[in-house]
């Protein structure tokens, strides 16, 4: 019996687990996939929103603004790539300018600091690549960019370091209520918990229905993106939004913390696990983005991807007890990433209110550092390689990632088991050649370090086999 079982280890589940790990409670996190951060958490705009979008008075408004502040602090403490670059919402028409004024008003009510409506010329002075058609813009200095999967990883690792148990490859199949506890049935047996947190992302309605009467449905909305080469990474300095519509926050153009340029998303209803990009969707993203930043060079594309928003057709997150001891953290659409730390804080509050005793641990390890060879000074590099030669061997040349960094991530609290798992932790394969050069070497390292054959190494999810069988002569003979 654990005190709390968390279903799902995206950024919401990870944040909740980390928050609870501050206290003297036992926590188990159940994740269907072989790694954390592999759902919506890894495929989104990677923005920490300032908080002028949500309607004042909503839970979303409060958690967004609080979450943005907490995320800044957490990213610093846990060494998550983060940059407060600010955002601009641009207006092309009188109607858009009205929207800016409305967003400004909302932002002020929501407690967002530093908001400012500026002229088109002033916007172009700050962002010379902005289109001449931009008439005005809303400037939000507190908006930031972040590595979303690393944020989730950092939260999950911190939770594990502080005693939470993470069960990967464990899919929840049902919930049944006992006398003051829940039995969580999974494909790997069952676990009993006094409280259950539903952080199942696009499947949060399915998990909700296991414990409580059907009350909402996730209506997935897919967003497609372009990720462009670092040579485009300085096209803009801040996040450039267009005015939001019913469909979402619109197509943005933004630098990423990794130095690339991200452009997207569109918004199309989709199957909840349909992460396909489409020719039409990508074309729409391209054309729409050019309205605000005409000079984006899409021939510098290095990757396309799609993510699914867990929309519920409801104007707020769906957070609250759906059954005794069963807490929904559901319908976490945008700005879910930003809100995650505040959602977690709020979840702890709700659990306390429902009778869970939360006593602070004497010692909570709230510290994480990752060694990034690329960011070291010349002297630091010399010393490091002299001491640990494996940091002298560059595996991913686009991102200058060394074997030492890959070996180190294999010794973290949540070691990767896949090529993409390594990528999420150390950036190997994230560059312009997209793993063309380093993937075979990462496969070799994973095979050696995990004691499995190259044929057993997967690209990402379990089942994503890379290699089928040995050649006639076999690997031994060549």
């Amino acid at each position, binding site marked *: 019996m654990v005190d709390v079982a968390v279903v799902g280890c995206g950024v919401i589940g990870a944040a909740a687990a980390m928050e609870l790990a501050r206290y003297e409670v036992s926590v188990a996190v159940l994740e269907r996939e072989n790694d954390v951060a592999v759902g919506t958490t890894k495929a989104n705009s990677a923005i920490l929103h300032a908080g002028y979008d949500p309607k004042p008075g909503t839970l979303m408004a409060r958690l967004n603004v609080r979450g943005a502040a907490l995320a800044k602090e957490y990213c610093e403490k846990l060494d998550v790539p983060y940059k407060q670059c600010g955002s601009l919402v641009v207006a092309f028409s009188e109607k858009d300018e009205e929207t800016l004024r409305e967003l400004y008003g909302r932002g002020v009510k929501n407690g967002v600091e530093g908001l400012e409506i500026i002229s088109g010329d002033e916007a172009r002075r700050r962002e010379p690549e902005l289109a001449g058609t931009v008439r005005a813009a809303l400037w939000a200095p507190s908006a930031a960019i972040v590595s979303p999967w690393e944020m989730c990883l950092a939260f999950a690792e911190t939770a594990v370091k502080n005693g939470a148990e993470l069960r990967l490859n464990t899919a929840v199949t049902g919930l049944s209520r006992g006398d003051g506890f829940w039995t969580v049935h999974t494909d790997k047996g069952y676990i009993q918990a006094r409280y259950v947190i539903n952080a199942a992302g696009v499947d949060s309605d399915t998990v909700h229905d296991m414990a409580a009467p059907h009350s909402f449905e996730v209506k997935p909305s897919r967003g497609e993106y372009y990720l462009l080469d670092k040579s485009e990474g300085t096209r803009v300095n801040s996040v450039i939004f267009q005015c939001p519509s019913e469909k979402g926050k619109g197509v943005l153009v933004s630098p990423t913390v990794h130095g690339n340029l991200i452009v997207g998303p569109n918004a199309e209803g989709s199957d909840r696990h349909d992460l396909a990009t489409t020719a039409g969707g990508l074309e729409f993203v391209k054309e729409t983005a050019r309205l605000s930043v005409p000079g984006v060079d899409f021939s510098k*594309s290095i990757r396309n991807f799609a993510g699914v928003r867990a929309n519920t057709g409801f104007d707020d997150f769906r957070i609250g007890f759906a059954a005794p001891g069963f807490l929904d953290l559901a319908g976490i659409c945008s700005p879910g990433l930003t809100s995650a730390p505040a959602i977690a804080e709020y979840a702890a509050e709700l659990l306390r209110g429902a009778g869970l005793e939360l006593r602070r641990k004497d010692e909570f390890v709230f510290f994480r550092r990752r060694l990034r060879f690329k960011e070291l000074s*010349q002297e630091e590099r010399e010393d490091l390689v002299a001491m640990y030669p494996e940091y*002298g061997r*560059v595996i991913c040349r686009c991102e200058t990632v060394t074997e030492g960094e890959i070996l180190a991530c294999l010794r973290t609290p949540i070691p990767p088991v896949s090529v993409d798992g390594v990528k999420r932790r150390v950036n190997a394969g994230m560059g312009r050649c*997209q793993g063309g050069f380093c993937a075979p070497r990462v496969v*070799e390292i994973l095979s050696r370090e995990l004691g499995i054959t190259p044929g057993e190494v997967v690209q990402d999810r379990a089942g994503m086999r890379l*290699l089928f069988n040995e050649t006639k002569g076999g690997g031994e003979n060549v």
Partner: protein
Amino acid sequence: MYDLIVVGGGPAGMAAACAAWDAGLRNILIVERDRELGGILNQCIHNGFGLTYFKEELTGPEYAHRFARLLSETGVEVRTDTMVLDVTPDRRVHMTGPETGYRIEEARSVILSMGCRERTRGAIAIPGTRPAGIYTAGAAQRYVNVEGWMPGKRVVILGSGDIGLIMARRMTLEGAKVLACVEVMPYSGGLTRNIVQCLEDFDIPLYLSHTVTDIRGRDRVEQVVVSQVDARRNPIPGTEMVFDCDTLLLSVGLIPENELTERAGIEMDPRTKGAAVYENMETSVPGVFACGNVAHVHDLVDFVTKESQRAGTAAAKYVLEGPAEGKGVPIKNGDGVSYTVPQRVRLQNAGDAFSVFFRVNRIYGKAEIVVEAGGREVCRFKRDRLSPGEMENISVPVKLLGGEPEEIRVFVREA
């Protein structure tokens, strides 16, 4: 202080270092990121290498071995398992390797011979899901020929670049079924001999003016949709063919790997995506040379060797005799020509004649390559056939130019 540091120990780097040694340089270092010399040749276990240079047919590793042996007879220092991270304009080379650590070495001259990389799915934005089973042809080649593992069983190949064609045959010989090779252009991007020997000999259909318009499958590729394209390369609705396959190989172009070159502030040519070079392969930074696929993508290693030998000899001359003189006359690409290498020629430094390498931008039957200097036709070269998939080269006698023109133009005239 080295006389010469060569960045990259593939065919270009090895030939350049050998030539520099032969020209009298003694203090030479080759830095190679892999564990052995040879570069991409090591995974090219098929034959067809060396026909021009050695007048015999060798495999890639054999070709590499010949040069590695020549090198071992010189005093050239080789540092393998070492990656160059930066080259500064004053020729300080930052490098790191597990054996020698992080080091900065100075050199009187530098040769850049880092080769090229493959274009990826992301570069051409193929829509669809993102399952395992999508590889660049070169990565697949490495898995099969170096690691000894098959990356798939039922294969569609997008692009008819030479590596893709070679892999069509290689995968077939290893028991895979190659269903199709799909090329968006109306002609193949590879050598004719590879179309014949790797596709036709194995009854693998080549679909010209077609492209992949969708990828399906969740964990592993399950289907690939191929559509015909119109003259503007847009897919034509209604022409879709669905292939049940587990693998998609991409052979959609090579890009010179010039991160170091750009960071060194060397002038680039957007047409070749390599450094702009003079007749002796010297870049805009004096004493820094570029050769092989890092300068422009070649089809045949034999030409890489010859070009790199010129670079090596020129680096030696630079160190021993001082900088080359003369102002560069620009060589412009005219009708039918996509680019030229070199981009500039210093006639005083060119000797009796200089070579110009280029590709045409479409298929030609009987045609003439025309060289124009100062608005006057100075020489013509007849060809029976010209194809973008095969690099052309001409040797222009300096005396025909009649003095130093403002610019030289190379173009194609249909016969």
